[in-house]
């Protein structure tokens, strides 16, 4: 009995572990994971603050020194002046040169797309402005 077993073992590949089956399985696993795996995007977070409901009424009277960016479904304005994205970037760079901690008020219209808000926030992040306040308008 014992001798027969040893004979069967040694009949394969001179007493060593038979790798062929294992390699088959490993390749199957490798291919399975390569196919099912989805590459993970690098994520980023954009911090904003939101005025509390009580201070919202006060801020509606708009302190003169604040920068107001408005986002509409069809464009952007800075202090009521319509601007394109590249023009806004230029302005923000200049503003950031003066003071990085000044509050930027971003007023977002209800029907505008979230993408546009993220675009503006990204520009602010690029220029280094950190005090961002998002206000929703109708």
């Amino acid at each position, binding site marked *: 009995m014992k001798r027969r077993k040893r004979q069967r073992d040694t009949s394969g590949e001179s007493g060593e572990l038979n790798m062929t089956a294992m390699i088959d399985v490993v390749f199957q696993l490798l291919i399975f994971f390569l196919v099912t795996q989805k590459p993970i995007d690098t994520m*980023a977070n954009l*911090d904003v603050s*939101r005025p509390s409901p009580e201070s919202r009424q006060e801020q509606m009277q708009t302190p003169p020194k604040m920068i107001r960016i408005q986002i509409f479904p069809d464009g952007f304005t800075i202090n009521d002046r319509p601007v394109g994205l590249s023009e806004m970037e230029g302005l923000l760079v200049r503003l950031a040169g003066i003071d990085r901690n000044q509050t930027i008020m971003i007023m977002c219209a209800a029907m505008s797309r979230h993408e546009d808000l993220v675009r503006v926030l990204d520009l602010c*992040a690029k220029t280094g402005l950190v005090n961002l306040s998002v206000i929703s308008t109708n």
Partner: protein
Amino acid sequence: MTPMIDVVFQLIIFFVVTADMQQKAIDESIKLAMAPHAKPVEVRDPREVVIEVDNQGRISIARTYMTADFLYTVMRKTVADHGQSVPVVIRADGGTRHEAVRQVMDACTRAGLWKVKFSAVKEKAG
């Protein structure tokens, strides 16, 4: 040798499958907007609450859809449990209208969370 390889494979498969499960909680159909200049996410706070808004404007946490009022209840409970320093991350689809995002932000503000983060893609993989 053979039993050891068997066990090691079992372990590898176990960890790969369970690591996958942790990602199931997020909605893959949400297409985040791009923000190439924002600061990348390095460490995640374990208390972090991720609120998702899909392109239909529906609000969900961990694939559970809810109304804005219910979200307020959830956020109030979160604040009661962990304080006002809980990080809130809003994962909103790029095509969502702002009003849906506003509802989420209003619910957070009412619950006492003034700081929120928007999730965006810094760099697309592949």
